[in-house]
């Protein structure tokens, strides 16, 4: 039976050439005509449009916008706290923080001297460009040197959503396992920077550094790598130098400073 009009045509799921049907009153009615639409519409077009508006705003204002992504507990907030502590005399830092619930992270960052706006996403597992746009209107108007967007802790969903950031940073902490890049390739392939965090406890947790770097070389050869500890500050200077270079060159390509590791075969430095 045709599922569309209920006529008795057999072996047809949707009968496209209906004869005029009779309704219960015996009046002849015309079956609705079938339209086939070629659309080729980008599903994320709306998000991408707002992301582009955000990007234009960041560029025009001279704000360096950094989207930080990782699993929950990799140290995103701690890295921003450390950044604020180390740069408090030099940079104006604003933050937009996404979590499913609570404004704990915004409070933590506030204590560290960062102007932070919390986005509580409810059930949403990622930030979208419109959420960032809305949060921007709540940030006090300041000449931000750095605008850090701390995404919802999740290595899957946020990968698909452009927020308008200039730099996408994916964080991998040493407690998570060396094969995270293989498990979440879409995320790591979208990164311009990978931070390996919690290096201060690498030995204690049996972190296999060479294996992790080899995995990153395979999955994310485009990324620039920094090995850091938000707790001790180790390795952070190279990361700050990279950010500083990006700030100075907002309209140019991302720099690759000498003291970072570029994850390309044959170009990997060791230390």
């Amino acid at each position, binding site marked *: 039976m045709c599922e569309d009009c209920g006529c008795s045509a057999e072996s047809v799921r949707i009968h496209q050439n209906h004869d005029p049907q009779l309704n219960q009153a015996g009046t002849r009615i015309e079956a*609705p005509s*079938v*339209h086939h639409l070629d659309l*080729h*519409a980008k599903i994320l077009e709306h998000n991408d449009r707002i992301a582009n508006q955000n990007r234009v705003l960041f560029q025009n204002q001279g704000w360096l916008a950094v989207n930080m992504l990782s699993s929950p507990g990799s140290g995103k907030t701690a890295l921003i706290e450390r950044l604020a502590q180390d740069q408090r005399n030099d940079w104006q830092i604003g933050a937009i923080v996404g979590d499913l619930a609570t404004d704990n992270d915004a409070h933590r960052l506030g204590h560290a001297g960062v102007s932070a706006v919390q986005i509580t996403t409810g059930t949403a*597992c990622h930030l979208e460009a419109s959420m960032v746009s809305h949060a921007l209107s709540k940030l006090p108007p300041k000449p931000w040197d750095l605008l850090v967007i701390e995404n919802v802790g999740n290595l899957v969903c946020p990968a698909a959503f452009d927020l308008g950031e200039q730099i996408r940073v994916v964080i991998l902490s040493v407690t998570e396992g060396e094969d995270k890049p293989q498990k979440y390739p879409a995320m790591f392939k979208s990164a311009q920077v990978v931070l390996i965090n919690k290096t201060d406890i690498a030995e204690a947790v049996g972190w296999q550094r060479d294996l992790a770097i080899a995995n990153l070389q395979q999955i994310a*050869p485009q990324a620039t790598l920094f090995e850091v500890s938000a707790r001790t500050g180790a390795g952070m200077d190279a990361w700050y130098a990279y950010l500083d270079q990006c700030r100075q060159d907002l309209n140019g390509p991302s720099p690759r400073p000498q003291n970072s590791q570029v994850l390309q075969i044959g170009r990997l430095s060791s230390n």
Partner: protein
Amino acid sequence: MHEVSLMQTTLDIVLDHAAQQGAQHIHWIKLRVGELSGVIPEALTLAFEIVTAGTMAANARLEVETVPVMCHCSACDLDFQPTSWVYVCPTCHQFTTDLRQGRELELTEMEVS
């Protein structure tokens, strides 16, 4: 589970086009989903059932075409389909980051009446 959010966005686009046609029924929709889009087709199917409930798309059929990743090796001037998440040129064995397809998330076609 961002597939629910994506499917809600898709449904909004679908309903807009259906309304423009003055349609009463949505028969089917087709999506193209890249392997590297971060979207799981099975999750899309579930999300489709959730978001279309109670709408004119409630009985519509969802077809998902998976778009394989296609890379380009500039040294060899070669497009190739990688066999894993490690994108290595089959000729010169160098890594490439030049992606020619695989991130698609598109609503391609639909049928209404």
